[in-house]
């Protein structure tokens, strides 16, 4: 009898897992559920709008649905529209690959002030995630980005780019206008640790040398004996002094945030402690935290991981697994999660042979009961609408609201245009 796997989340980890499962077991039934009406998760809403090359992996993922028999069920929130238990009863294995979308907080005084914005919140608004908060008011002349990961560099680059430098991206009209009118004069990007321990990739830093409208300074990149750290330091040294544009970017390291302060409920300065224990104060009109992500949403990650039989191996309970950032935490690039997914697929395929297969009838009944779900053809209609009649300098214009997506997805031939 045919075995079936449900994957919760159709981002890169879920898709790579489906790919590895179907490569090893082409006869397997794989159903992918996503809370959004559209697939690909982080590739669509987390990878920067101006990094289209990175988004090319979706061509692999499309084959899951177009050639390899996987089914897509979008607009289904597991934990709300269907319980995890119901899925577990219907499928031989259920894998949670829902990612981590909540911004980790600094946990310091002043974090609730206006002008303090989480990186996830900001990028969701910029990349037009249908559940995003509206774009914040203009950030003002002086922005601090707290964090030294690739997300912090993405935000730095987007805020620093001129409108012309966003050509070829899929940044929408409203976010493009918001960026063009930001009025940002200075951006400080601040790391808690020395540069040697920064998490960003050297290539992300080097990419900043292409920016035309900036002047870049790097303060205290330091030294290291470690080869990996040295690459990052050399990348920083290579961009130090770059450009003579109007936007000033300063990299600062070894500053631990202590408090955010302001009057009238709005952030005006950030207080840090440096390695010598001295207080350093930087003025700011906006403070963006890019210090990692945590679970948010309808699935109780902490409880699931806490009770897991083998959390490291991705096994939460019999027939229940976790993949990607949901399992490993907010670290690791897309290809690292691909390697993880391949390991997990091997494990799942071995495990499901041990138990007797779940009957397909119940599964199909459950799938049909999820009325209002968006199938892959529905997504293709959204995709076609997003990529037709484009302005010359954009490769896609995303449909920003769930209702408009659903209207397109559920449009049938009979109802016409």
């Amino acid at each position, binding site marked *: 009898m045919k075995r079936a796997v449900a994957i919760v989340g159709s981002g890169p980890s879920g898709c790579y897992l489906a790919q590895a499962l179907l490569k090893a077991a082409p006869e397997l039934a794989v159903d992918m559920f996503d809370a959004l009406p559209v697939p690909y998760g982080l590739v669509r809403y987390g990878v920067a709008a101006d990094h289209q090359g*990175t988004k090319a*992996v979706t061509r692999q993922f499309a084959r899951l649905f177009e050639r390899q028999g996987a089914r897509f069920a979008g607009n289904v929130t597991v934990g709300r529209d269907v319980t995890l238990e119901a899925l577990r009863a219907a499928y031989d294995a259920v894998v949670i690959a829902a990612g981590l979308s909540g911004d980790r907080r600094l946990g310091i005084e002043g974090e609730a002030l206006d002008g303090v914005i989480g990186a996830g919140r900001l990028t969701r608004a910029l990349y037009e995630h249908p559940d995003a908060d509206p774009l914040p008011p203009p950030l003002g002349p002086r922005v601090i980005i707290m964090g030294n990961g690739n997300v912090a560099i993405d935000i730095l680059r987007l805020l620093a780019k001129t409108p012309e430098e966003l050509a070829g991206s899929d940044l929408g009209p409203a976010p493009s206008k918001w960026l063009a009118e930001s009025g940002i004069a200075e951006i400080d990007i601040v790391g808690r640790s020395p540069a040697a321990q920064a998490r960003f*990739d*050297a290539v992300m830093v080097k990419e900043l040398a292409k920016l035309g409208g900036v002047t870049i300074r790097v303060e205290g990149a330091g030294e290291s004996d470690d080869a990996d750290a040295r690459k990052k330091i050399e990348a920083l040294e290579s961009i130090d002094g770059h450009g003579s544009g109007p936007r000033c970017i300063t990299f600062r390291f070894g500053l631990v945030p202590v408090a955010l302060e302001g009057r009238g409920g709005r952030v005006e300065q950030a207080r840090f402690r440096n390695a010598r224990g001295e207080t350093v104060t930087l003025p700011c009109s906006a403070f963006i935290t890019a210090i990692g992500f945590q679970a948010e949403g309808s699935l109780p990650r902490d409880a699931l991981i806490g009770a897991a039989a083998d959390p490291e191996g991705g096994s939460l309970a019999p027939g229940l697994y976790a993949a990607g950032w949901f399992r490993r935490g907010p670290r690791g690039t897309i290809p690292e999660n691909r390697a993880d997914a391949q390991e997990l697929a091997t494990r799942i395929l071995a495990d499901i042979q041990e138990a007797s297969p779940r009957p397909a009838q119940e599964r199909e009944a459950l799938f049909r009961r999820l009325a209002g779900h968006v199938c892959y053809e529905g997504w293709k209609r959204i995709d076609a609408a997003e990529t037709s009649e484009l302005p010359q300098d954009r490769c896609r214009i995303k449909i920003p609201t769930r209702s408009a997506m659903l209207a397109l997805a559920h449009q049938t031939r009979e109802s016409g245009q």
Partner: protein
Amino acid sequence: MKITVLYGTETGNAEMLAEDIASELQSEHTVECCNLCDFPPDAFKSDHLYLIVCSTYGDGELPASAQPFAEALETTAPDLSGIHFAVFGLGDSEYEETFNFGGKRMAELLAARGATQVGERAKHDASGSDMPEDIALPWAEEVIALAAEKMQETA
């Protein structure tokens, strides 16, 4: 012709392209497709044409699945004279300084061991508008024709 498509991949894009090339060539040739991480450098055969599909990762580095092969090639230093290969590289011109360095490095490593490169090294650009397979399939036909001549001469 006996053709082996070898791929070095990080995100799976090169793997997908290698499989596409292999299945396209299947009807007229004897084709195998193999990940470079599963291919020992002493397994090259002089009556095969090797089509190498290789991406570029990070700061112009070889993709993960090509790295063990590259290391083995350097440590075992096999004599690859009489071996014919062609390279199709994948890259992203957003990173112009190291654009397509993965394919370039593979070509250099094999040439350094005496292997003969056939045709031009193809360079796909992820930031361009061409689909990799649209370039790769005509490229494959072209290098196969060139290789057929060369391999006949040397046989």
